[in-house]
């Protein structure tokens, strides 16, 4: 079936527009009808496996109920957890801890959609797909009085497609440790859109664990962040076990003078494809970025990284560093890494680098020469490789036991 037909049929199958996201639904559906599915002629989708992408259009939008709560590890004492169960409509009935409040209709009206517009993702398929199908919105503001960490867990549902949207304001001077967990399921697709507004002097440490772990699971996730002056945003994420996954962090320092750190790890095996398309734009001077992108591809899998950094004339004295380090563990696997720096300002320090290699022979020999067997030595080296990202994830992430799966998968 042609992709245009698949897209049209999917749009026709959606329920009528309604609720607080009615306008957004109309917008997304309109843009999808107009532009349809992307093709490999679109630069941003050039390397995409379109057969896998079709699962977002062919799987039914949730239609049955399943209690998934019991499958999760216990939460930490000093952490609050929100589970987004798309079946149960829990968005509206969450007991929020002190220091976190729901946004009222007026605040939603004033803010929603602005960040995806400013971070230039408005017409992207990932966002349109979410806008067209998301029915509920979790919209929260974090006040400076909040002193716990927060977990948002989003499981997917077998043989279904889900779409979630989260909007978060970290108010002036507030600090938040956020851990988001996405869990895949057999033959499932999930699409997430997270918009974050980081007000002046706000600090957000954002851990994101995205684990497919089951057969034929797909995920698209867009994180759009707007940082005000003197704010700090750290994104530490891991993506593993998806048949198909696309991750799009889009960050804008709207006034410069802010600090952004990104450490991202993607690990693929079998015939999986995981792609990260990041964009960081500085709209003012003295902005800082430290970005580390890591990928490990084995068997017949494919990892993609597209890293855009935009430094317009106004963003003088920007200091940005991007490093893409990749491990290719099989001659059949593939890694595409493309740094894309657009620098107009002349008084800046911007560096980038990309390496693709195998496990270092000298490191391996050192371990072997101490009597450690080949398999154990490889696994120690890989663990060390992952650690540069994993060690930055919030402590509570350990409970999700993903490191063991990572080690078991890649031999």
């Amino acid at each position, binding site marked *: 079936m042609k992709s245009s037909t698949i897209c049209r049929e999917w749009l026709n199958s959606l329920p009528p527009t309604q609720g607080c996201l009615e306008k957004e639904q109309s917008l997304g559906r309109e843009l999808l009808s107009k532009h349809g599915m992307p093709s490999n002629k679109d630069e941003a989708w050039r390397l995409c496996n379109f057969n896998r992408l079709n699962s977002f259009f062919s799987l039914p939008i949730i239609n049955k109920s399943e209690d998934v709560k019991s499958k999760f590890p216990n939460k930490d004492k000093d952490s609050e957890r929100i589970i987004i169960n798309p079946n149960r409509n829990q968005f509206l009935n969450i007991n929020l801890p002190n220091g976190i409040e729901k946004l009222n209709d007026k605040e939603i009206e004033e803010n929603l959609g602005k960040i995806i517009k400013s971070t230039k993702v408005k017409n992207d398929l990932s966002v349109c797909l979410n806008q067209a199908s998301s029915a509920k919105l979790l919209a929260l503001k974090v006040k400076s009085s909040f002193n716990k960490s927060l977990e948002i867990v989003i499981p997917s549902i077998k043989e279904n497609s889900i779409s979630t949207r989260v909007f978060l304001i970290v108010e002036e001077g507030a600090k938040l440790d956020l851990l988001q967990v996405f869990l895949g399921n057999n033959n499932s697709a999930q699409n997430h859109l997270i918009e974050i507004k980081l007000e002046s002097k706000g600090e957000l440490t954002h851990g994101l664990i995205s684990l497919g772990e089951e057969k034929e699971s797909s995920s698209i996730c867009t994180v759009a962040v707007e940082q005000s002056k003197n704010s700090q945003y750290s994104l530490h994420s891991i993506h593993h076990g998806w048949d198909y996954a696309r991750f799009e962090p889009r960050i804008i320092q709207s006034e410069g003078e802010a600090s952004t750190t990104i450490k991202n790890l993607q690990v693929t095996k079998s015939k999986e494809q995981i792609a990260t398309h990041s964009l960081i734009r500085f709209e003012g001077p003295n902005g800082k970025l430290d970005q580390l992108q890591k990928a490990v591809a084995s068997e017949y899998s494919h990892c993609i990284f597209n890293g855009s950094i935009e430094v317009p004339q106004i963003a003088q004295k920007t200091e940005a560093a991007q490093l893409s380090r990749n491990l290719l563990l099989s001659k059949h696997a593939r890694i595409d890494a493309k740094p894309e720096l657009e620098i107009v300002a002349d008084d800046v320090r911007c560096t980038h680098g990309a390496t693709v290699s195998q496990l270092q022979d000298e*490191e391996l020999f050192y371990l*072997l*020469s101490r*009597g450690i067997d*080949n398999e154990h030595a490889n696994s*120690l*080296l890989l663990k060390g490789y992952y650690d*540069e990202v994993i060690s930055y994830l919030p402590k509570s992430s350990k409970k999700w036991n993903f490191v063991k799966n990572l080690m078991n998968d890649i031999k």
Partner: protein
Amino acid sequence: MIQSTSETILSIKDLHASVEDQEILHGVNLLVKEGEIHAIMGRNGSGKSTLSKVIAGHPSYKVLSGSIQFKGINILELAPEERARIGIFLGFQYPVEIPGVSNLEFLRVATNSRRKELLQSELDTFEFEDLVKERMKIVEMDPAFLERSVNEGFSGGEKKRNEILQMALLEPFISILDETDSGLDIDALRIVASGINKLAQPSSATILITHYQRLLDEITPDFVHIMADGKIIKTGNKELAIDLEKSGYDFIDNNKKDKEMVN
């Protein structure tokens, strides 16, 4: 000099080896027995480090002919990890930094691999911590280095101490220490040398690869060998190293010239 074979730890005969298709070793012969300390000296590029890597089984080095026997076993058929487990230890000239791999975990896994071979019980985390802290005293090493990644951010001296710590934990029958003295100040050299002396056993042997006499002031060798052009060209006792320190390696060139003139 050759005594009964039961006392021989390492026997190298007419060893020829290459790296990247270039022959580096052109017929090395060496016999090392229990309790002995050997020093191998020679200019850069004479083949000293190559010999140590070949004994340890580095995959980049290819043995073209000859033999290496360890306690009567032909080790050329063994993988590097098997050689280490039966008691061959290589102290690296440039110990490798491995980011993200905890030094403590690395030392524990390595020690347990050797213990398994010796039919000793494997040590759990707590048992191992007690052992490693005790052995660290031999090289006056701060236990804080256990928490760091393997050799990452260690100074030259700290890396070499970490090597000797591994030797202390693995209790090998033969230790080949490749330029353990390079990059060490006088105090660090004394600590490292003292560690090597403390670890010397009547049932084990040591091969010191070095450029300088100063290490041999701290550790007295039974034999000193001089390597040139991939061969051991002269063997003597400690006096040979002292002579070498005074007169340098020029005699090698003079010998070569003499041979050329005869031919």
